[in-house]
């Protein structure tokens, strides 16, 4: 650091607030007009775009009787879906109305949605996890399309970029399903061990899971070829492909680890390392939807932005406020939101001024 530390991006372009709860997730609506944070106390905090700079105006609503375990932008242009340890899936509409979509017998640990990037009002799909089952519903949330069974509890789900397939991670591998198939012929991707999260390459070239043993496992989808990506000091709790699929950006080390998915990689290639905090584990990553930019959050509360091409680092905020537990970019790339285990929530406005 130089003698006078530059004012951080958060101070210049952001707003922050501290809650008395563990921030368990954050999401930004598909129309990029609302940011939502969810907590271990069952609350959702919603910030409309006009109030991004005024943290005291963000609205707190209790949505679950217990912890909110998952949050996703609704399949509709506005609003959110949340899953809780009260075994319910709820919708918070753009106008703030809360409704209960599902009340089951298991925690709703994961929620994912897909909507056409061209027209978010048509053909959207909602997916959520309850135990070993993934249930798919139409965008209304009222009609079940299908229920997908797995051999053990599902630890993560993700749609592919086109919304045609959904993948679920579980013990001994991952399963890919066609969302709209009349007859289900799931593709089993097998690898012994406990898989605890899943991502799909934006062009559908590969599927990668995070594993209990602090490593990644991947399958090249064209031929099922196995890939192993190891060397992490901690479990990889967060991973994301860059918009063009060139890099898989991951947490789990005291630098941001990026695996190359070009030029024959990641097989036989060393990962690139982008900045970091010595001795402090990266806990969350997010990739920008428009530019070659990565956001990373660390166990000491540090958040930084990095340019994957120029390897330039821009600090968003320095240490403090607890380990980063939630991090997201808006679909239009204008907002970065993050939250911490100790209740700090923040929104940074990245739009051109």
């Amino acid at each position, binding site marked *: 650091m130089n003698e006078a530390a530059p004012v951080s991006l958060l101070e210049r372009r952001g707003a922050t607030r501290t809650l008395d709860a563990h921030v368990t997730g954050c999401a930004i609506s598909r129309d990029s007009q609302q940011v939502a944070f969810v907590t*271990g106390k069952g609350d959702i905090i919603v910030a409309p775009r006009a109030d991004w700079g005024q943290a005291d105006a963000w609205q707190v609503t209790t949505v679950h009787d217990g912890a909110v375990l998952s949050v996703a932008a609704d399949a509709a242009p506005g609003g959110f879906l949340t899953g809780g340890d009260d075994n319910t899936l709820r919708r918070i509409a753009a106008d703030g109305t809360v409704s209960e979509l599902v009340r089951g017998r298991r925690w709703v*640990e994961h929620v994912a949605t897909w909507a056409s990037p061209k027209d978010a009002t048509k053909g959207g799909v909602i997916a959520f996890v309850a135990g070993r089952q993934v249930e798919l519903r139409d965008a209304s949330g009222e009609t079940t399309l299908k229920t997908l069974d797995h051999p053990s*509890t599902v630890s993560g789900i993700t749609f592919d970029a086109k919304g045609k397939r959904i993948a679920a991670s579980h*013990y001994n591998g991952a399963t890919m399903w066609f969302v709209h198939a009349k007859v289900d012929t799931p593709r089993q991707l097998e690898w012994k*061990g*406990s898989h605890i999260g899943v991502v799909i390459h934006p062009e559908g070239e590969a599927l990668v899971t995070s594993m209990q043993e602090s490593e990644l496992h991947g399958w090249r989808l064209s031929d099922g070829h196995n890939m192993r990506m190891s060397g992490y000091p901690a479990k990889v709790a967060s991973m994301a492909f860059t918009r063009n699929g060139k890099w898989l950006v991951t947490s789990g080390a005291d630098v941001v680890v990026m695996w190359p998915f070009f030029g024959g990689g990641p097989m036989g290639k060393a990962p690139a390392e982008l900045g970091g905090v010595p001795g*402090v584990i990266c806990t969350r990553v997010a990739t920008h939807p428009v530019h070659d930019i990565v956001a990373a959050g660390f166990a000491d509360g540090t958040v930084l932005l990095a340019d994957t091409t120029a390897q330039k680092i821009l600090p968003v905020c320095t*240490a403090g406020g607890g380990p980063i537990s939630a991090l997201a970019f808006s679909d239009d790339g204008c907002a970065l939101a993050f939250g911490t285990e100790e209740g700090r929530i923040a929104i940074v406005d990245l739009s051109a001024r």
Partner: protein
Amino acid sequence: MSDATQASPDTDRLVPVTVLTGFLGAGKTTLLNHILTAEHGRKYAVVVNEFGELGVDNDLVVDADEEVFEMNNGCICCTVRGDLIRILGNLMKRRGKFDGIIVETTGLADPAPVAQTFFVDEDVRGKTRLDAVVTVVDAYNVLQTLNESPEAVNQIAFADVIILNKTDLVDEVALATIESRIRAINGVARLHRAQRGDVPLSDVLDQGGFDLQRALQQAPRFLEESEHHHEEDVTSMSFVVEEPLDGAKFQAWIGALLQEKGADILRAKGILNYAGESQRFAFQAVHMMADGGFIGPWKKGEKPESRLVFIGRNLNRPQLRRGFESCRAK
């Protein structure tokens, strides 16, 4: 900077987890309800795995599947409860809503994967601590169960606390036989008699069964050598070396022993006197997973000698004694 997040968590901050095992019908759920409804002013989260005939009387009950998997860490017996890693991680996000967690296992469950989960997973270790394995035993059926089921033997062998329940259904002579049979398997656990699970909470909660500070706090109670049930599949053995040990030699010996015999050694505990060290060294292991550390000076009036206890199958007493004695400092 680096110590800001890497500092080892102090045990007071960690939420205690009690594991409740025992055969179907032994009275686990009765004991559980007794704990939950007692006037202690504490709140518990309960993780249950089977819907027994009795309901669990608590606000926060999590229904789980016992999902065991084998770690790919080259350790053949390292099985872990993946569902617990997930559930404990999520429960800890509630923060401040409860004082402890009680995990009830199915009747046939092996306690090892539960215990190993606390050795293996960094997130679980960072927020919770395994307090004790409590095994409920039905006095009326236990002798038959032990003859028929290796799982029941494992549950007793693994226990820090054994609740001998339904003692009103058998007479004193039978109870003595039962207790000596249990002691032959596990000479370290605290054994309490009960009827309908009516034990004081201080006998079940806050036992520090995996706390190095409290390792072998209670002197093991073993039967005399001659009284041993030699047909017993699982046994306890304790060893004492009065002369100071060479720390490096001990580490090398115990490391090799656990590597070779870890599948047979269910639990091991020790308090050791290293030559040239004023502090006691505590050691414990569950199968091949071990941990150890210095736990402060010897207490006043305490004899600085090294004690080691093994609970397991196929334990070779002369071999273990020779091995332990070979760790003496020259």
